[in-house]
């Protein structure tokens, strides 16, 4: 900030406090490709042995690739559903005239604030009734539904910034409201849409509780439950190098996406959002 204050003490203090996290990050990276002498923490040998889970099923939990594909389907579909649905409904709430609009708006705010995880038990039972328990499609629907109020809220914020005059001009030029939305308004909210898409994808990718409870079987497992299995199964021999390799494999897309889209995402994270 200004040159009136010295920053060295602050840097020192922050460094000390950040040390545990930095050590965790560093060793997570290093340990995946090295081995150390028993009892020592300093890596001594380079090895790709810890990545063996990629080509053979040493874990007894099925192929990691199935889980990866499942995770892609899960995160991709939820993001697509959330975006498509909030794209239309947020526009209706932001711009269209229809009865009970107030009610719907209040509903969105309340749902947006509501802690969805408390509903997990009822959702579990509903999926049992519907026969969607332990299926990928069931978890996708649930995740999309729970993410939707947030999506609508974010998209409404983006629609609200589009000047009314643009729409008025479109209507004057003879375009229907639908066409105005399609041709004139959508292009204006496109940046917001892509931010929401990325955000929902990441949220789906990281989701853990929903797949754990609603799709515990190995057919529909995603990477989060695949990895959690190592942590939660006491009978397994603890092999942190292997666990970390799986973890890094799992988190790689997240880190990449974050690095590429950092600025866009900050808009959503910083916007007083939940998540």
């Amino acid at each position, binding site marked *: 900030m200004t040159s009136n204050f010295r920053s060295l003490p602050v840097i020192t203090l922050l460094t000390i406090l950040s040390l545990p996290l930095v050590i965790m990050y560093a060793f997570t990276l290093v340990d995946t490709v090295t081995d150390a002498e028993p009892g020592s923490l300093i890596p001594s040998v380079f090895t790709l042995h810890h990545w063996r889970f990629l080509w053979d099923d040493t874990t007894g939990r099925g192929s990691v690739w199935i889980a990866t594909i499942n995770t892609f389907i899960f995160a991709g579909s939820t993001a697509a559903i959330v975006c498509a649905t909030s794209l239309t409904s947020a526009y209706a709430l932001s711009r269209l005239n229809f009865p009970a609009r107030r009610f719907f708006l209040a509903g969105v705010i309340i749902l947006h604030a509501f802690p969805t995880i408390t509903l997990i038990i009822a959702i579990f039972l509903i999926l049992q009734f519907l026969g969607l328990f332990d299926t990928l499609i069931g978890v996708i629907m649930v995740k999309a539904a729970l993410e939707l109020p947030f999506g609508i809220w974010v998209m409404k914020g983006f629609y609200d910034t589009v000047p009314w005059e643009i729409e008025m001009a479109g*209507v004057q030029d*003879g375009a229907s409201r639908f066409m105005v939305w399609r041709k004139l308004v959508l292009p204006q909210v496109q940046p917001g849409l892509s931010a929401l898409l990325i955000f929902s994808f990441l949220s789906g990718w990281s989701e853990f509780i929903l797949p754990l409870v609603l799709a515990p079987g190995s057919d529909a497992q995603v990477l989060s439950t695949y990895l959690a299995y190592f942590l939660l199964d006491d009978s397994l021999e603890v092999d942190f190098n292997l666990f970390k390799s799986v973890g890094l494999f799992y988190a790689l897309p997240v880190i990449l996406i974050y690095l590429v889209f950092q600025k866009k995402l900050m808009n959503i994270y910083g916007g007083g959002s939940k998540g």
Partner: protein
Amino acid sequence: MQLRLENFTKTFESLTVIDKLNLTVESGEMMALLGPSGCGKSTTLFTICGIHRMNGGTLHFGDRDVSDLPSQKRNVGVVFQNYALYPHMSIRENIAFPLRVQKLDNATITRKVGEIAELVHIPELLDRRPAQLSGGQQQRVALARALVRQPDVLLLDEPLANLDAKLRLEMRSEIRRIQLETGITAILVTHDQVEAMSMCDRIALMKDGKIVQLSEPDQMYNDPVDTFVAGFLGNPPIAFLDATVVDGQFRVGDNGIAISDALQPKVNGQVQLGIRPEYFGPQFGTGMQGQISFVETQGREDLYNVTLPNGAVLRSIQPAGPRLKLGDTVNWGIASDHALAFTPEGTRI
């Protein structure tokens, strides 16, 4: 095409903003809706273009009743205050949009866009984006887009408000030129009396949802129906004095002003006198004594406020000359033929 608004009523929630307003704009005429903010002029404009719905009354374009038609079917061109150009489209696409909506073929669209671009003098800008244009250029594009499908009526909502002073002058004459060349019926909404007077054939001056006076600009300036109209037009503004009719004179404190022959039979008792600055000064003889209480020099002209002994203030505008100083005592005259008389309630006598 003639535009006819009859018994137009508009309410928001329970508040009636405009009650039974009548307005006729003749074919090819440019009409100004002038008034202070909140007078209902924008509401009227938005109703004519169909963005607001009417709560009562009818609207005709020529013989066509458009009262219940949505905007899309009214065939009205609108230029918005902030131009509302579509930022993601090139200028060409912007202008072509109303034609695309009508699903015209590409050749026709290209031809029409070319023609209108010539008319508003922007053919070289067609491939740019709105963000790359200056305010004046954006204004021209907005006009082109509003005119390209040959609307029955052109509506201009404060079109010059977002321009700097120099461009405003230029666009004033440009808009008028284009309106005259196309011969389109146009309505200009503005709060700026200079714009209204310089651009339009007639002015409808509005206040509180009603049209107070509808007439040609010079007539409105010289022959206002009440103190509101007199005060709204003219810069520097007209000065009002409380006067009493005594012995064939308007008495203002110790000073007296002759009553013109025309007014002589109509006035008695208390009146309000309206004196425009150009009709008060040494060139009109003497009669009003007071002290200079304010001096502003505008280069070509000087502006003086003269405070009379009873506290009333008169304004005077004079060609730049030997400067009088604050506090100087002057004795100037009034062109009594041009003094406007109003009842104490403000109605013109």
